[in-house]
């Protein structure tokens, strides 16, 4: 009978100044892909999590104001359920804080994430940058988003259930 090993899971975190450091991205993708391929049943889930981590990390590279940004990726058991959790933390300047929080809260609160994604894709080119990363994490990867603001830091968490690769006992 396939059962879930209680020690199932893996995690890593990177603390760095991500701003402008796009060359870090392929290494992050590879690490997520390797961990997922060991722990998850389906390649499709791995691909979606790689995409989600890519989008959240690209946001750090593009929008962080520098300093000790954080990226954390976890495959863990939460309340008996295998879950994936991606957390980021970065500084946001006072100039951009209002717009950033407005965008994040709009995406988090959207009743229909797919409709909002379509709306944002349709308005591509009408704003600086794509601004599609976070809505894609919610609409396409199907992860639940939450956020908090502490002083000049924006914390974002994306969480969702995954299907663990079970071991035969």
């Amino acid at each position: 009978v396939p059962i879930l090993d209680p020690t199932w899971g893996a995690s890593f975190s990177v603390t760095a100044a991500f701003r402008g450091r796009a060359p870090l991205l392929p290494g992050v993708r590879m690490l997520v892909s390797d961990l997922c391929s060991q722990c998850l049943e389906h390649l499709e889930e791995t691909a979606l999590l790689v995409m989600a981590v890519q989008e959240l990390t690209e946001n750090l590279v593009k929008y962080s104001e520098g300093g000790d940004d954080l990226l954390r990726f976890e495959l863990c058991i939460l309340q008996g359920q295998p879950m994936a959790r991606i957390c980021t933390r970065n500084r946001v300047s006072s100039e951009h804080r209002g717009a950033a929080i407005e965008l994040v809260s709009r995406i988090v609160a959207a009743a229909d994430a797919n409709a909002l994604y379509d709306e944002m894709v349709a308005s591509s080119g009408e704003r600086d940058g794509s601004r599609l990363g976070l809505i894609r994490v919610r609409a396409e990867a199907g992860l639940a988003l939450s956020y908090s603001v502490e002083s000049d830091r924006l914390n974002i968490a994306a969480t969702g259930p995954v299907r663990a690769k079970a071991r035969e006992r």
Partner: protein
Amino acid sequence: MTAIVDDIMGTAFSTKSLVSGDQVTVQLIGCLDLETAPLLRRFLTQLAREVDAGGLLEFEFDLEHLYLLSSSAISHFAIWLKTLRASKRVRQVKFRTNPNLAWQRRSLDALWRLAQPMLTVE
């Protein structure tokens, strides 16, 4: 006059184009992320110029060897598709996905909803 397409020759991302009359098939090879998406934007701008000149009216993108499509690239495709749709000259744009990379179809859904029936995804 046959259109001339200058391919991208990057290490992380490249294209390989084959023009036949007013049709072009473009292989997208590698990863489209924050670093390589500007190359895609430049390439698509080039294709849009060929549409304006009447040289290209059908596009097929072969995604067999595309391993990542980030939001930056999706945004560039969206802008390009809106331009083509407004021009009303283009007959068809097709994305041919790799059936072993199921994420590709999911990632292209939003573009399909934006630009169908001009855009098809197989």
